[in-house]
């Protein structure tokens, strides 16, 4: 930290320190939710629906119940009613034109897609907890088999015979009627934003573009599938959970069971990736707890890879129409961005795809709007940069189209409309270094050598294309607490109830605490991942560095202060009587700079050899009303397209991001690399396929659901523009988890256009889209 109270020494914060948990992870010592060996543990397997809409008429479980090792089969017909289970109302899918014919077997219960689509938002996430017989998507959990071994549970799950009253599902999002959401749930904000006069701005434009951009359904697929172990002790529940949000799981499960939250403890010391899908609880946590209570034994449930498609969220499909108008010199006169995204009939989840459009460019006339189509698929949810990943594809593609229409360099167009303050709120930025990002990335990329004309650059048989786009993501922060304790032996431990989802939280928080206390990182033990620790926000929305980082920084600072005060008030201390401000801490020593001083160990030895502790809870304050807080970046991409064979390669991506203070140069770089790799996948490969008639997820495994492989990735050149932002957080960080993917898909699509002259407005850019 740059705190004046510290002695001069290379700070730990910012250093590319190896992960403190790296050894545990590579040796298998890091234990994930499903890996706890608990005596008496039994196994559960979910039974899921094979139709997309209707009712479960009957479930014949008699064969399954008699199968070897089976302890219990739970269905909507015998599952205990949970006092706090949310009660889904009749949220009809969007109206769809055409005959209401019944497909599949079984008679219709007579509730086809009803007339005009129901209005109004289903705000809360509605998990399916076997509380009713309604089927809302194909793959929905409709039963749970508990057996002594996983194999027995799987075998019995296959033996459950289900009959349905099948209704015709609504699956054609292109035809389904749009529903205006009442609110932008759950990320907040208004459905519509308007500033200035968009119609006027478009009418006055010398040049304009107006196109529709489409992004497909996608599913997260972290390496670790969702898993839960539930163990009851009396009326208390312990959950080992694979989650990004231990407190949100605790609170939701407690609510379902009508329990006080402090009766539920959720533990997640390591989570094998989440990307948003583990941001909050789904069905399986409470179902596992229900099963454990029913059978009176601890129960483990691990989703199959196939069950990762539907029951635990995904990115919705978006259809975004963007109109831009500009004067001849590139000055934007109007931006209109309307986004229509899919949702389920369980939750009116809005992909906030227009949020960046409200503030990215200094345009006086801007209008954005959201619509939803409710279809019979699993609920959408947060997926790495929800909103900005899909939204920047549309907006930054449109900006590229405008640049061509204007015959202007794409970077120059963006600089022409650079927003010196938040154009929507009028507030100053807490920090913004986007200009430097463009400059840094463009220079390293060699952008100035670009020939603007499409198809103008070749390398042998390849057409070479260069494209760029802007990256952005909000800098959010939540309330967070921490406790820190200095031990008599000079080591310190710090605890905060956050999560390690692979981002390097154990490591970066160790670094923050080490610097604030003035001890070596090796002397710090940072603990996280249990709800008996101080509450912290879920590891979503890139909040952890700013939220937990502030709490850890502040609690370590408070502990240090306590110890300094102890020393200067102690006549036996060499520092007795020194002013607090004059004391520096370095390598576990309190000094005034020279030889005068003592160690934490010596200080505590004189004070009864007892640990000294500090606790803190932090929250964002008035600054959130004074400043607009966002991270920014620039992505430059080179693609090679074989014009004959329609092969697309991405040999080179160059990025620059300004994301506040970098806590660890190595893990930060990894975050951007991961985001870029995912962006390549989003641009070229990723798409969840739903059978158009049955609503079945049909590419629900990693052989068919394609993400980039090593051979797809070329060099990724990452740089950061340092801009410690003390408005966002006392640790100066803005968060880095999401921004890496934003802008990447647009940058690639723009490069493909530059290479081929072909503008692809629908992701993913597969072979057939460049085959002419």
């Amino acid at each position, binding site marked *: 930290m740059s705190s004046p109270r510290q002695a001069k020494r290379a700070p730990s914060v910012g250093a590319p320190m190896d992960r403190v948990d790296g050894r545990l992870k590579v040796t298998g010592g890091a234990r994930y939710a499903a890996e706890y060996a608990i005596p008496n543990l039994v196994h559960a397997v979910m039974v899921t629906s*094979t139709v997309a809409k209707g009712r479960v008429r009957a479930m014949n479980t008699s064969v399954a119940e008699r199968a070897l090792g089976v302890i219990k089969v739970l269905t909507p017909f015998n599952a205990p009613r949970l006092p706090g289970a949310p009660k889904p109302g009749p949220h009809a899918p969007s109206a769809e034109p055409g005959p209401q014919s019944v497909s599949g077997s079984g008679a219709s219960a007579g509730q086809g897609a009803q007339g005009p689509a129901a209005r109004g938002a289903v705000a809360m996430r509605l998990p399916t907890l076997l509380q009713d017989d309604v089927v809302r998507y*194909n793959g929905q959990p409709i039963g749970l088999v508990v057996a002594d071994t996983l*194999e027995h549970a*799987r*075998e019995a799950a*296959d033996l459950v015979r289900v009959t349905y009253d099948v209704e015709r599902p609504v699956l054609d999002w292109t035809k389904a009627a749009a529903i205006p959401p009442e609110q932008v749930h759950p990320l907040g904000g208004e459905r519509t934003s308007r500033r200035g006069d968009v119609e006027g701005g478009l009418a006055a434009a010398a040049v304009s573009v107006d196109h529709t951009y489409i992004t497909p359904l996608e599913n997260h697929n972290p390496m670790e599938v969702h898993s839960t172990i539930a163990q009851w002790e009396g009326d208390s529940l312990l959950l080992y959970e694979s989650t990004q949000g231990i407190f949100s799981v605790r609170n939701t499960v407690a609510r379902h069971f009508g329990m006080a939250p402090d009766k539920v403890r959720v533990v997640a010391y390591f989570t094998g990736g989440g990307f948003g899908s583990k941001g909050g609880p789904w069905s399986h946590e409470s179902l596992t707890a229900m099963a454990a209570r029913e059978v009176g034994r601890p129960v483990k449930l691990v989703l199959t890879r196939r069950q990762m498609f539907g029951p635990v969220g995904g990115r919705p499909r978006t259809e975004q129409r963007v109109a831009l108008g500009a004067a001849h010199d590139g000055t934007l006169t109007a931006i209109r961005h309307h986004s229509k995204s899919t949702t389920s009939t369980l939750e009116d989840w809005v992909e906030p795809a227009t949020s960046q459009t409200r503030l990215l460019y200094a345009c006086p006339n801007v209008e954005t709007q959201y619509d939803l189509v409710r279809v019979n698929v699993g609920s959408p949810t947060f997926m790495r940069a929800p909103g900005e990943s899909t939204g920047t594809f549309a907006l930054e593609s449109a900006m590229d189209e405008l640049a061509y229409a204007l015959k202007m360099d794409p970077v120059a167009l963006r600089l022409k409309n650079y927003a010196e303050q938040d154009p929507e709120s009028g507030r100053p930025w807490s920090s913004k270094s986007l200009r430097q990002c463009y400059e840094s990335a463009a220079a390293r990329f060699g952008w100035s050598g670009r020939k603007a004309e499409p198809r103008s650059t070749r390398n*042998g*048989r390849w057409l070479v294309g260069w494209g760029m786009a802007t990256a952005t993501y909000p800098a959010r922060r939540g309330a967070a607490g921490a406790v820190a304790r200095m031990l008599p032996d000079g080591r310190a431990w710090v605890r905060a109830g956050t999560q390690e989802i692979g981002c390097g939280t154990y490591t970066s928080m160790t670094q923050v605490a080490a610097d604030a206390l003035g001890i070596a990182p090796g002397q710090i033990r940072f603990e996280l991942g249990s709800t008996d620790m101080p509450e912290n926000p879920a590891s979503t929305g890139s909040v952890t560095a700013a939220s937990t980082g502030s709490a850890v920084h502040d609690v370590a600072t408070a502990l240090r202060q306590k110890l300094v005060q102890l020393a200067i008030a102690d006549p036996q201390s060499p520092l007795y009587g020194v002013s607090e401000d004059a004391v520096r801490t370095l390598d576990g020593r309190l000094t005034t700079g020279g030889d005068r001083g003592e160690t934490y160990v010596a200080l505590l030895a004189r004070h009864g050899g007892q640990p000294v502790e500090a606790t803190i809870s932090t929250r964002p304050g008035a600054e959130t009303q004074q400043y607009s807080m966002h991270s920014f970046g620039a992505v430059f991409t080179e693609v090679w397209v074989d014009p*004959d*064979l*329609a*092969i697309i*390669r991405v040999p080179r991506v160059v990025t620059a991001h300004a994301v506040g203070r970098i806590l660890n140069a190595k893990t930060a770089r990894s975050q951007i690399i991961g985001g870029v790799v995912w962006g390549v996948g989003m641009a*070229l*490969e990723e798409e969840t*396929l739903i*059978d*158009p*008639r*049955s609503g*079945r997820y*049909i*590419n*629900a495994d990693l*052989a*068919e659901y*394609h993400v*980039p*492989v*090593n*051979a*797809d990735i070329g060099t990724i050149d990452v740089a950061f523009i340092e801009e410690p932002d003390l408005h966002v957080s006392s640790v100066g960080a803005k968060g880095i988890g999401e921004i890496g993917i934003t802008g990447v898909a647009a940058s690639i699509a723009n490069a493909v256009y530059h290479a081929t002259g072909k503008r692809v407005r629908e992701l*993913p850019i*597969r*072979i*057939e889209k460049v*085959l002419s």
Partner: protein
Amino acid sequence: MERFQYTRARTVSEAIGIAAHSSTAQQGAPVRYVAGGTTLVDLMKLGVERPTHLVDINKLGMNAIERTKEGGLRIGALVRNAALAHDPTVVRDYRALSEALLSGASAQLRNVATTSGNLLQRTRCMYFRNTAMACNKREPGSGCSAINGDNRTLAILGTSPHCIATNPSDMNVALVALDATIHVQGPKGTRTIPMQAFHLLPGDTPDRETVLEPGDLVTHITLPPPNARATSRYLKLRDRASYEFALASAAVVVEVAGGQFHYVRLAMGGVGTKPWRMSAVEERLTGAAVDDATIRDAAQLAVRDAKPQSENGFKVELAQRCLAHALRLATGLASI
């Protein structure tokens, strides 16, 4: 999850003796040989294959690559894909086979996958792999979900109203172009089957994929002596750079003499319901001048009978580009 018996066969005749009791050697076979297991075990986990008896053939030897006395190659059924792809003779004399194998799956899979397993791998049609969906191949008479469903990756040649699934193997395409022979030992003795006749068209029995009968064990595959003056190449097109099945692929064996195609063997993958031999195109090319016009014309002929489905119309064009480029590579008209 199904219960099954597992026998590690010690001799070929023991293996055949057990498998001979199977009601079929096709879809639904209650007895299955298991080699590398990378197709079979995967499909068993998905509930697509439900054998009651597995006969492990990994201890039967059958894993040598040897010269035949005619100067061809004899490839044991259990030779692993990686070993075959990197065999110096294969690399030198049957380059298309090496390239085809190396374009398939991943290094890890190729280390365990076998020659006979690859030959007999099942389609990747996503509906076939999903027991909740109707599929004539998996459950005869239940219907074909892929027609009018998501059929982007499926076939345009050799389809029937009952099934449009592709044979997904890369190796098989090269074997067809190289005129391989499959050697089978069964309850009634040994026999040989030309590679081209080994796989069946779906017709109205898409559950029948090969000519194998209960008990039939593939023991080895032979390749005729290489044409020393010919060049063989394999070209595979797909969305991602690796670890994906072919959208279109071509194996070509070409000898050019005096500026003309002298000897031509062509097969395509990713587009046919079986590894697709392009006999008519071979005929057209033989004796024709080696130039771009001839090649374009040949590529057009290759897809003359193509029947695109709702989502895979692009394959008609892609297949032509693929074949044409493979021919350019083999004739030196293109270098990469």
